[in-house]
């Protein structure tokens, strides 16, 4: 057993040495090694191809994974930039609004307080906004509230740090007004549908027409004279009725009002000219 084992070893060693000797003597290994190489080469080529394929698949997978994570990062980045853009646009718009408000306040011949809308009530029963100015800021009941476009409403409730402003389209709101062009007097009222109408006596309003600007009358010294309220959109002619109604498009865009001026002072001056009224 042992001799066989060592016999094998010796044979193998001799075979190896023979191969080496043949080569060093310049004879080469001849056809035998060529045959082995010829047999091995295609197998090597195949293995390399398989390996390359596997590496290719792996690389594609890692690339895909990389692209996926990169995509997620880029998406988050794009989202962040979009939010930043929106914030910037928002700030710019706010800036424009505040500038207009400040501009109006400087032009007004009475003291005014800027306030920010912090709440809204528009369920239909009541139409009001809450402003972050209250008793502490010197706000009183019935204080007129305006925006650069015109009248918003009046303060109906004063709290320590906030005030509730009844909008002019509130069903319970009534504002003394006139048609600027014809000087027809009447009352601006809110209706249940959220609209605003101008109620005037039929005998005085023959010339009231769509497009006419309605401004506060200044009577009763609650609202200064000349605050734009809205424009006449249509006339509801009730024939022989005592009062006629004009449908009014409010000057202020109530759902979009964000900053307001609370007119804490008083003036007898007609301030209509201070407002930029389009149309």
């Amino acid at each position: 057993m042992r001799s066989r084992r060592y016999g094998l070893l010796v044979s193998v060693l001799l075979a190896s040495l023979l191969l080496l000797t043949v080569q060093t003597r310049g004879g080469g290994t001849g056809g035998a090694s060529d045959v082995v190489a010829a047999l091995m080469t295609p197998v090597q080529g195949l293995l390399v191809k398989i390996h390359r394929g596997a590496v290719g698949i792996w690389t594609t997978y890692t690339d895909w994974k990389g692209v996926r994570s990169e995509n997620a990062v880029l998406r988050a980045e794009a989202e962040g930039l979009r939010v930043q853009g929106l914030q910037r646009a928002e700030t710019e718009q706010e800036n424009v609004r505040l500038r207009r408000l400040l501009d109006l306040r400087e032009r007004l011949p009475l003291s005014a307080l800027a306030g920010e809308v912090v709440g809204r009530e528009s369920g239909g029963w009541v139409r009001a906004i809450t402003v972050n100015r209250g008793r502490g800021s010197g706000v009183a009941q019935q204080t007129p509230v305006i925006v650069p476009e015109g009248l918003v409403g009046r303060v109906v409730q004063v709290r320590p740090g906030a005030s509730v402003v009844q909008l002019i389209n509130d069903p319970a709101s009534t504002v003394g007004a006139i048609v600027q062009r014809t000087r027809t007097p009447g009352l601006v009222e809110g209706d249940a549908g959220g609209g605003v109408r101008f109620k005037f006596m039929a005998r005085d309003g023959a010339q009231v027409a769509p497009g006419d600007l309605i401004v506060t009358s200044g009577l009763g010294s609650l609202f200064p004279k000349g605050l734009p309220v809205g424009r006449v959109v249509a006339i509801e002619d009730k024939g022989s009725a005592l009062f006629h109604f004009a449908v009014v498009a409010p000057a202020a865009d109530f759902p979009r009002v964000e900053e307001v001026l609370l007119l804490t002072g008083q003036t007898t001056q007609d301030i209509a000219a201070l407002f930029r009224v389009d149309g």
Partner: protein
Amino acid sequence: MRFLLLLSTVGGSVAQSSVVPTLSIGGIAPDVPLILTVLVALRRGPEVGCVVGFFAGFLQDVAGGGLIGVQALTKALAGFAMGLLVGRFWVASPLVQVPGLVLLTVAEGLTRFFLLQFFHYPVSLGGLMMHVVLPQALYNGFVGAACVLFAEGVEAARKHGWV
């Protein structure tokens, strides 16, 4: 079983010249045919280890384009020597097998170096040991450990009838 041995011998040698180079770290790749020879010798004894080592080395010589017979001789010796250790030392434990593989790689490297001295191999032993033999021995140790663990796992699975 013989077919499996032949397949792994040829496959290991061919892989060594095609796939394994991509696993190289700092220019050093594991010697898969040597690892294979050692593992076969550990399980099948010196004769099979010797023959497998011879053929694996021979194929490596052919594929590598060097002197044909050098690795055939050194690997045949390595397989034989490893096979002889079975029964004399407790070589069933991976804790013996892996350091054994490292030492055998060094021994095989030294043998190859001394053999190549007859053919005026122009590299110093120090440089060869530092840059080739020792790093490859370590690499072989790691790969061998993985192979041993894999083989143990397969054997355990077979025992439990999972495979």
